[in-house]
């Protein structure tokens, strides 16, 4: 039965396929008949093979012994009858077993059992019946056009700060004569208009942003800091001499445009200088023209990366199916590419600084030789070089702003993509505030929290604030990731911490603050108390600008999570003076 069932399943499946193919007009009637006959034959072959299989006598004897409670009589007798040596006890045993045969009932020993795969056979038969009853449609199914993707809708209050920023960027670019930035700002404004008119889908907007980034930002992630440092140092030297003091100060404050103007003016005044002044100027220019940029600052990093890449390549040769190593290799290759680009840009900046040095030295030499026209020409060239630096720096800063704006816009799109309303956004913020990403279960406190605890006596409303390490402090939360987050201070560190962990083992002392009993001051007392401190003496716009500059600098310098950045920027957009 088992064999018939197994091969029967195969046969039914084959028959089902044959019927399907016949219905789909892929095979003819003759072939279908042959296939059905073959399927039937398979089931019969299974039954015959199963029936013809040799029965294991020992197993059979055991089953009879077990089912009839014969205490291994038949099994033992079978074994004794197969051996040569025999004794009276062995013969008696065989005789005893033969005597028991009369009461053996084969049906009791091997009761009928349904084949194990009978259900599967039934299922395949059902499938076959389904295929038999299946009606193939005569005409082709109508192709339903896929609905167009939904147009992107951004709330005006969300979009407005971005539009304002883009306009501001365009204005600044025009003022500073940066055509590329101006063009980028124009394109961004065009995009915002399209968003306002609901002409774009989310996907299209992402694609356009990526296109803009590729067009304008590629190769712009250079570092101007090193060059700026050298220019500031140059300014420091120039500042020492009265004639070049203004230009030096401007350079020291990284105001390259003013430095250019001052140098230009100085070049025009060279004719009016006496010999002593010319000597002093030459000395000052000579001292200032000693700035050099280190050549191999990045070389060590590049060498290290190359070494790691070689090691990973060897590892991959040995273990070809190591996806982790492959990913690391790709990442490091990309990093190497970036470093190479940075090296190229640094080399360019080095050459430019060298040229500036040469021009200033040339001007100094001409002054010593009393060749005023040549000195004037060299100093003007130096001023032009300074102007080029100023342009580069401005462009880099403006492009950085534009890039930041695009990042903000993408973040906004991502958040909109998650379908969050105002409440959702607030929840999202709370999740991020706990150091997790939205949609993930946040990791609870790493360490054991030390909670604030009210004085259990309840006398006098004392509020005990135990500091970390204080004995007897309550410890809610803690290491249990499923538990509620602790209210107090943790003593662990984020595993992804960048930089040094907070040093908890510092000298400290416990402070107990005793609250004052009573209802506290009234509202009017609070308001009047606040007015006692005086009124604002600075214009809000100025305060806002100062704070915004500091915040932008911090956001740029520090490694702040993108989610946090978004909310900080959003906050400053909301409190922006209108």
């Amino acid at each position: 039965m088992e064999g018939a069932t197994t091969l029967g399943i195969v046969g039914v499946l084959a028959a089902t396929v044959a019927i399907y193919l016949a219905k789909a007009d892929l095979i003819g009637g003759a072939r279908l008949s042959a296939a059905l006959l073959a399927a039937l034959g398979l089931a019969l072959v299974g039954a015959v093979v199963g029936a013809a299989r040799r029965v294991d006598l020992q197993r059979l004897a055991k089953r009879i012994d077990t089912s009839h409670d014969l205490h291994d009589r038949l099994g033992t007798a079978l074994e004794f009858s197969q051996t040569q040596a025999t004794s009276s006890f062995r013969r008696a045993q065989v005789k005893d077993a033969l005597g028991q045969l009369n009461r053996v009932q084969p049906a009791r020993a091997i009761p009928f059992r349904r084949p194990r795969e009978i259900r599967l056979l039934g299922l395949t038969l059902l499938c076959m019946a389904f295929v038999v009853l299946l009606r193939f449609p005569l005409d082709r199914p109508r192709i339903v056009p896929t609905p167009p993707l939904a147009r992107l809708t951004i709330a005006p209050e969300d979009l407005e700060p971005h539009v304002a920023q883009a306009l501001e960027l365009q204005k600044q670019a025009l003022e500073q004569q940066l055509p590329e930035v101006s063009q980028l700002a124009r394109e961004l404004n065009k995009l915002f208009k399209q968003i306002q008119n609901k002409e774009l889908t989310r996907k299209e907007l992402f694609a356009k942003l990526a296109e803009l980034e590729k067009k304008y930002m590629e190769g712009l992630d250079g570092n101007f800091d090193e060059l700026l440092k050298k220019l500031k140092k140059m300014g420091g030297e120039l500042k020492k001499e009265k004639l070049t003091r203004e230009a030096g100060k401007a350079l020291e404050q990284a105001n390259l445009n003013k430095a250019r103007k001052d140098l230009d003016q100085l070049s025009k005044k060279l004719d009016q200088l006496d010999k002593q002044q010319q000597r002093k100027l030459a000395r000052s220019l000579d001292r200032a023209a000693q700035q050099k940029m280190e050549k191999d600052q990045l070389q060590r990093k590049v060498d290290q990366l190359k070494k790691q890449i070689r090691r990973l390549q060897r590892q991959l040769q040995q273990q070809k199916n190591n996806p982790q190593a492959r990913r690391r290799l790709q990442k490091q290759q990309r990093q190497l590419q970036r470093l190479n680009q940075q090296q190229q840009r640094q080399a360019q900046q080095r050459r430019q600084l060298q040229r500036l040095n040469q021009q200033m030295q040339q001007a100094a030499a001409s002054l010593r030789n009393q060749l005023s026209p040549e000195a004037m020409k060299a100093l003007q060239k130096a001023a032009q070089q300074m102007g080029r630096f100023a342009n580069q720096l401005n462009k880099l800063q403006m492009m950085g702003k534009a890039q930041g704006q695009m990042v903000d816009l993408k973040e906004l799109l991502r958040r909109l993509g998650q379908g969050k309303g105002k409440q959702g956004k607030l929840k999202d913020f709370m999740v991020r505030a706990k150091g997790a990403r939205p949609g993930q279960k946040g990791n609870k406190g790493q360490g054991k929290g030390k909670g604030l605890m009210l004085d259990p006596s309840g006398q006098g409303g004392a509020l005990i604030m135990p500091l970390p390490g204080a004995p007897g402090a309550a410890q809610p939360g803690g290491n249990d990731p499923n538990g509620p987050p602790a209210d107090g201070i943790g003593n662990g560190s984020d595993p992804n911490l960048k930089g040094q962990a907070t040093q908890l083992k510092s000298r400290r002392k416990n402070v107990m603050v005793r609250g004052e009993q009573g209802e506290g001051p009234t509202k009017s007392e609070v308001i009047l108390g606040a007015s006692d401190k005086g009124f604002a003496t600075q214009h809000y716009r100025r305060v806002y600008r100062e704070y915004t500059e500091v915040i932008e600098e911090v956001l740029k310098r520090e490694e702040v999570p993108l989610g946090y950045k978004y909310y900080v920027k959003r906050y400053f957009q909301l409190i922006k003076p209108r």
Partner: protein
Amino acid sequence: MTQPATSDPAQADPAQAEQLAAEFIQDVKHLRHEIGKVIVGHDSIVEGVLSCLLAGGHGLLEGVPGLGKTMLVRTLAQALDLNFSRIQFTPDLMPADIIGTNILVEDSGGGKRFEFQRGPIFAHIVLADEINRATPKTQSALLEAMQEKSVTVSKTSYHLEPPFLVLATQNPLEMEGTYPLPEAQLDRFLLKLKVEFPGREEMHTILERTTSRQDPQAQPVVGRDRVLQMRDVVRQVPVAHKVQDFAIRILQATHPDRPDAPEMSRKFVRYGASPRGAQAMLLGAKILALLDGRFSASCDDIRKLVHPALRHRVILNFEGEAEGITTDIVLTEILERVPQEAP
């Protein structure tokens, strides 16, 4: 007198085996009947003690005082018409007190010589009562007697007359001041039988018998020679290879270092049973088969013998002791895990 069945195939006659088995059953039945006159219940213990006698081994009976262990052994000796001696083991008992010693005797001519004075070990059935109260030195005096069936004093060996059967008792409760039997000595005992407290009905019978005027006594029904013949009959019972293999696999399963040992063995057993364990199981199974009217041992017989034959041969480790695991629990687990058919 019944002759041993021949193993010559030409002369092998099943009727002869049938007659031997029938006589065997009859004699055991008589013995049980006589013992039953005095001992109430304890059928499995009586069967175990008789198995020790008929298999040529020794038995260790463990039970709290007052359950009739000593009475059972004494009654067995009465029913068998054999010499019986009882040794009460105490901490100050010396080996010479058991085996005997050379004493100085004066002959009629006034000459003096040493003569060996036999100890209580020179009997057919020896009851070693509370064997764990004697010191290891005295306990070990029994070692040679139990295994070699002889004792050696002053370089002279004295053979013990067969059948020689030592039935030792021990009390599991009062462990203070006792000396647990060493593994080597425990291994000499064919079976370790646990004497349980009798049931309510049995208690009624015991009280009726012991508080009335009647004083039942067992009558001798089987003599020394017949015991030896019955031992020979037991050894003629054949065992199928698969049954023997089953016993071996059970024995191997008690060894924690075997790869196929059950989890409990690996976790709680320090040393597994010795090959004497398998011998005990097979001999006991043969006797059970004969008493059941069969001519060969079965796996079920082996199953019945696993606990009495192996419980004193399996040594638990510290973890097992600490967890309160007993060897009976381990053996039950082994019986569940080891399949009857070889894998």
